[in-house]
């Protein structure tokens, strides 16, 4: 039996489109994932959805379905308008936070969900969260190890991220009086303004008006090169960063 090009062309069409039609009828033509996160296979959490399986194509609504975290909470954590948050695709975060020094994306949502739900998560890799997300997690039951990790992996919210990745510039009198901040901008400003974090340097604290003597007094040690991060210095000198941070924050707040 000889076959020529035209019947072969017809067969190719019939096999591909016929096959797709049949598989559609049988319900096996799925071009998207079922949006059901894989579960932990062993250990204490076996059978529960695993945040590590959250994909970029998931919407906040899908995350809500899988992990029972309201999309409004996710919206608040990642600075999304709460209207329509359920249809916001997780991978959209990367673009939103494009100006951020550290990547905020699908990994950040995985981390947030894990910490929010008290589920295990690999903390050996660096994954970052915006400040709003970190603030929401403060009230959750975090282990000391998770708290320390969170502290060191918090970055400014998107509004702040576009201006400066580390600190919000203090608004000038002119811009402050002209600007009519939206509610979310105002909230994020209050949260990000002059806050001592894992990345804060001594120079920033000096810029916020705290003198070198006060800093040295609080630490009970001489101040190093101002460009050193407070946290790094504390670690080096065996000082408790959390205690020093709180004490220094009190001094910073006095300057406002």
């Amino acid at each position, binding site marked *: 039996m000889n*076959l*020529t*090009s035209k019947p072969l062309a017809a067969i190719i069409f019939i*096999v591909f489109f016929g096959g797709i039609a049949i598989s559609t009828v049988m319900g*096996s*033509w*799925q*071009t998207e994932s079922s949006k059901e996160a894989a579960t932990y296979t062993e250990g204490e959490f076996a059978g529960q959805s695993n945040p590590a399986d959250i994909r970029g194509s998931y919407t906040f609504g899908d995350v809500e379905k899988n992990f029972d975290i309201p999309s409004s909470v996710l919206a608040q954590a990642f600075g999304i308008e709460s209207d329509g948050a359920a249809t916001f695709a997780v991978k959209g975060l990367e673009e939103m936070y494009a100006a951020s020094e550290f990547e905020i994306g699908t990994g950040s949502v995985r981390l947030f969900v894990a910490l929010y739900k008290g589920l295990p998560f690999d903390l050996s890799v660096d994954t970052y969260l915006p400040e709003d997300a970190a603030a929401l997690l403060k009230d959750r039951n975090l282990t000391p190890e998770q708290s320390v990790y969170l502290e060191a992996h918090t970055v400014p919210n998107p509004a702040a991220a576009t201006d400066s990745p580390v600190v919000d510039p203090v608004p000038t009198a002119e811009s402050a009086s002209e600007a009519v901040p939206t509610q979310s901008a105002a909230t994020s400003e209050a949260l990000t303004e002059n806050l001592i974090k894992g990345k804060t340097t001594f120079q920033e604290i000096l810029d916020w008006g705290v003198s070198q003597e006060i800093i040295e007094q609080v630490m009970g040690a001489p101040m190093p090169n101002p460009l050193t991060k407070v946290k790094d210095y504390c670690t080096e000198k065996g000082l408790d960063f959390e205690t020093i941070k709180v004490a220094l924050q009190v001094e910073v707040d006095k300057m406002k």
Partner: protein
Amino acid sequence: MKIFGKRLFRPRSIWIRRVVQWFFFLLIALIAVNHTLVENGGGIAFLSTASLHALCPFGGVVTIYQYLTVGTFVQKIHESSFVLMILAFVLSILFGPVFCGWVCPMGTVQEWVSMLGKKIFRRKFNHFVPEKLDKALRYLRYLVLVWVIYVTATSGTLIFAEYDPYFALFNFWTSEVAVAGLVILGVTLLLSLFVERPWCKYACPYGAVLGVTNLFRVFQIRRVESTCKNDGACSIMCPMNIPVDVVKTVRDHQCISCLECTSEAICPVAKTVVFNVGGVK
């Protein structure tokens, strides 16, 4: 028109193959654009919004291991890839890698660039690589296949997407495409000026999978020795440099079932290079 069994006006190529290639190229291109539009809140109503991964039969191949061991798909791969993989396999077992010769847009694009190469280099085109080297390089795609399956199985992610020129071709406008993929695409297109289908011949892991069916496919390319004039036209025309004029049945692992060597296209004698099943009458 035929006189004494010989055709006076014979088509120089299988034109319907070009039509089918254009069709699938445009279809995939439109779906890829539509996918981007949908992600940005737009989209063309009647068109599929699937991602390119969901429409790639090779995705089905790389996910087999994970599917059998864990029961899930590799990230970004869905049931549709499995369906397409099975359909392309069925076609290949019957007719050889027609997916490569008629459907795959990556093969099509290389052929388009090669048209220019043929105009520039004429008879030298597709004969630049020394025969011995060429023969050895043709097995490279099996190494690529083993590597792709290995890294996918161990990582559970679609690492090959970062190197895949086909993915880069239909995603160069998105942030999803990796530099490596773009570079490989660029090199492939450049080489297509000198060699027909360089990616298919030397590197494509899916071509490697489908190529194996050439050894046992049902419909074969056969040459009828009794009427053959031994002018070598079929071999000169073959995009994959297969010496059709010296074999009775083409079983070369690189044949793409394009039918360009047959009497319907380049072979000047009717019913001499045929595509059939069973013995030649």
